[in-house]
């Protein structure tokens, strides 16, 4: 079966407006959560759509799409992949979106209810629906291959990579994958707060604290990552000099317990992890570190800690750098994969974000740690019971160099 490798990464995140800026900041352990209108959030500082997107397109699209288009351009440049130089049917776009064009939608509904239907713009019909970013990406870059959008809340980023690999195996050699999210407009924040899972702290240090004894919920954040995923042979054929790693294994399960309550045990998260490992044909012992979902609520953290112990049966190093930036919904898992690939590349694993008092029986990475390994496991869960796991393998030496 063909192998799917990541050849380009683009990052738009609270931790940076480029892959390397994000990586430097993550290793430095900078906290990017701040208090905004009486709530903790993770904003992308200095991100302006105009800096990244054509003004004609700006007015037709939401902030979430601007971030997606910006990250896509970076990823394509990083991969030195120009879709226009290839048969248009040989590039697909498979993104994740958890909440669509929040700010745009709120503005238009407000216009309708305060000023009537003629105040609604022509672009509402194309700006807020979940497929807007994928459609705009396809149009901007002229890609005509199989494309899709997956909605599984926080698990979406991994599901998009799983679907990208599936698309590659079915004959489309290059796929733009990952996702972004921009859920910090007022109505979107209200919606999220009704989940009862957000931190209500106003002190950034006391807010989102994955695996901490004082974990008290997560902090919503914006941004994400877009990855260029390619068939390994096709990438080699076009002379790719940089491969970050391979999406070696993927699996998704659902708790299917109850729509209102978390499951009583972690068995379906365990299953997702084991199936992803089996899919990659590796044993837990070969995996050098885990990037956890790290939901940051006591119950969800306990379930994941239990699952990791059960799968590994040894103190495997566990990190959750998203504690530095907040939870980016569908963009989060895509960003986590980017981080894990950089950790594999440089042989250094970043610390759990914002961890003060480790609260679980895990080998939590407290300071960036040198770990020279070929394999990492990434977990992501989505609200309601989605569990997804991905196994990443460092690029093999086949006349192809690691990233950078």
């Amino acid at each position, binding site marked *: 079966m063909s192998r799917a490798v990541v050849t380009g990464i683009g990052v738009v995140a609270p931790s940076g407006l480029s892959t390397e800026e994000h990586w430097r900041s993550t290793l430095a352990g900078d906290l990017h959560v701040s208090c905004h209108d009486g709530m903790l959030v993770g904003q992308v500082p200095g991100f302006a759509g105009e800096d990244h997107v054509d003004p004609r397109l700006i007015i037709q699209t939401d902030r979430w799409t601007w971030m997606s288009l910006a990250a896509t351009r970076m990823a394509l440049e990083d991969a030195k992949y120009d879709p226009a130089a290839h048969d248009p049917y040989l590039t697909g776009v498979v993104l994740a979106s958890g909440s669509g064009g929040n700010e745009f939608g709120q503005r238009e509904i407000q216009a309708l*209810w305060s000023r009537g239907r003629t105040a*609604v713009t022509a672009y509402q019909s*194309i700006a807020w629906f979940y497929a807007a970013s994928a459609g705009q990406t396809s149009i901007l870059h002229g890609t005509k291959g199989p*494309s899709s959008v997956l909605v599984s809340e926080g698990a979406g980023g991994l599901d998009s990579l799983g679907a990208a690999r599936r698309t590659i195996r079915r004959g489309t050699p290059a796929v733009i994958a990952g996702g972004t999210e921009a859920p910090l407009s*007022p109505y979107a924040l209200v919606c999220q707060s009704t989940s009862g899972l957000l931190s209500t702290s106003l002190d950034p240090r006391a807010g989102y604290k994955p695996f901490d004894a004082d974990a008290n919920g997560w902090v919503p954040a914006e941004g994400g990552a877009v990855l260029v995923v390619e068939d390994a042979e096709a990438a080699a054929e076009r002379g790719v000099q940089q491969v970050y790693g391979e999406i070696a294994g993927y699996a998704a399960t659902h708790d*299917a317990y109850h729509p209102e309550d978390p499951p009583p045990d972690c068995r379906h998260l365990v299953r997702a992890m084991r199936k992803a490992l089996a899919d990659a044909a590796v044993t837990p012992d070969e995996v050098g570190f885990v990037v956890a979902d790290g939901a940051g609520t006591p119950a969800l953290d306990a379930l994941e800690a239990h699952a990791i112990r059960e799968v590994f049966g040894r103190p495997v190093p566990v990190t959750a750098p998203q504690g530095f930036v907040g939870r980016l919904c569908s963009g989060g898992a895509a960003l986590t994969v980017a981080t894990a690939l950089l950790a594999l590349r440089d042989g250094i694993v970043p610390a759990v974000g914002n961890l003060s008092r480790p609260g679980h029986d895990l080998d939590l990475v407290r300071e960036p740690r040198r770990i020279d390994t070929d394999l990492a496991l990434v977990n992501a869960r989505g609200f309601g019971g989605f569990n997804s796991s991905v196994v990443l393998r460092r690029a093999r030496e086949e006349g192809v160099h690691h990233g950078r």
Partner: protein
Amino acid sequence: MTRRTVVTGVGVVAPGGANRREFWEMLTAGRTATRRITFFDPTQFRSQIAAECDFDPYRAGLTAREVHRNDRFTQFALVAADEAVAESGLVLDAVDGERLAVSIGSAVGATTRLEDEYVTVSDHGREWYVDERYASRFLYQALVPSSAATELACRFGAHGPAAVVSTGCTSGLDAVGYGHHLIEDGDADVVIAGAADAPISPISMACFDAIRATSARNDDPEHASRPFDATRDGFVMGEGAAVLVLEEFEHARRRGAEIFCELAGFANRCNAFHMTGLRPDGVEMAEAITHALDQARLDPTAVDYVNAHGSGTKQNDRHETAAFKRSLGQHAYEVPVSSIKSMVGHSLGAIGAIELAACVLALRYGVIPPTANLENPDPECDLDYVPKNAREQHLDAVLSVGSGFGGFQSAVVLRRWSR
């Protein structure tokens, strides 16, 4: 060995048809369910008509709690899935939950609830900084479209992969296609696959008004959805859901399931042209059709019926007429083509699944549903669109296509089952 996907259950909630039987009776009678909007006062809108479901979630079997925590689109999905699963004869206790998956499509998810609650928390749009105290407890749960997959997974004990596929108006075909891939690739043996949308709300009507995509034939709602007719003036909004039980053939055979048909091919492409515009040549849709037929190992001439996207906008009808000619050649002029949107309207992401349900039933009963309201064909639409009256015809292979905002083009091929 190749794993093949068969359809073993069908459930429908559609305008004018609260279940599969009523839906099929309506389609074959050529009745339309389009009417003046009753959900709210539509007077301010350019298009004041829609195909509404007369849907009572309690009579359909949902509990107060389920109704309270779910948007209407998820309620539709649950009811359609109940029917599909019951009909498939699946004994859930005997199915390996880890091999049971969910793949649901939706273009706009919980728009209705999103708008209703916004009106409350913003004091009718007066406040940008909305007031959290007025938000209902289940708001987030109701709004995230992934809840539709969660609800179905919990209801049927599906511990396999669960996904919501959201590609605008091709969501229904793409979600069923994704389910088909899960089976082919060995990730699941049974997939509860379909789509739901409930977009008849003020903001949806306003946004399609703004681009004049919807019909303004307000004085004659029953005849407003007129695909391929020279006097058509846009699509008529609809709502609903359809769910198919997809099953790996050996799994279905072992339990002695009744097999409706095979899902033999699926392909999707993008036009990379415009978010709402379509090139008149239909090249990308033709490409999707050709690939779906290749997977099914069918010659274009083997297609017995084409279920068109047929939205009733001028550019769509010409676009896909060209796509059929390009992909099917001379056979395009011989094969019957029809659009059930003429009767049930255009329910955005849901319609692809509803149309597939119609195709499954057409294969089973040997009846082609008509294109209602087709009196005077647009001269540029010169195929056999099965005007007004259903047609009895033995069918072995059926093609269903969809086209959506964002440039998505999808095609699914269903075939009478044979080894």
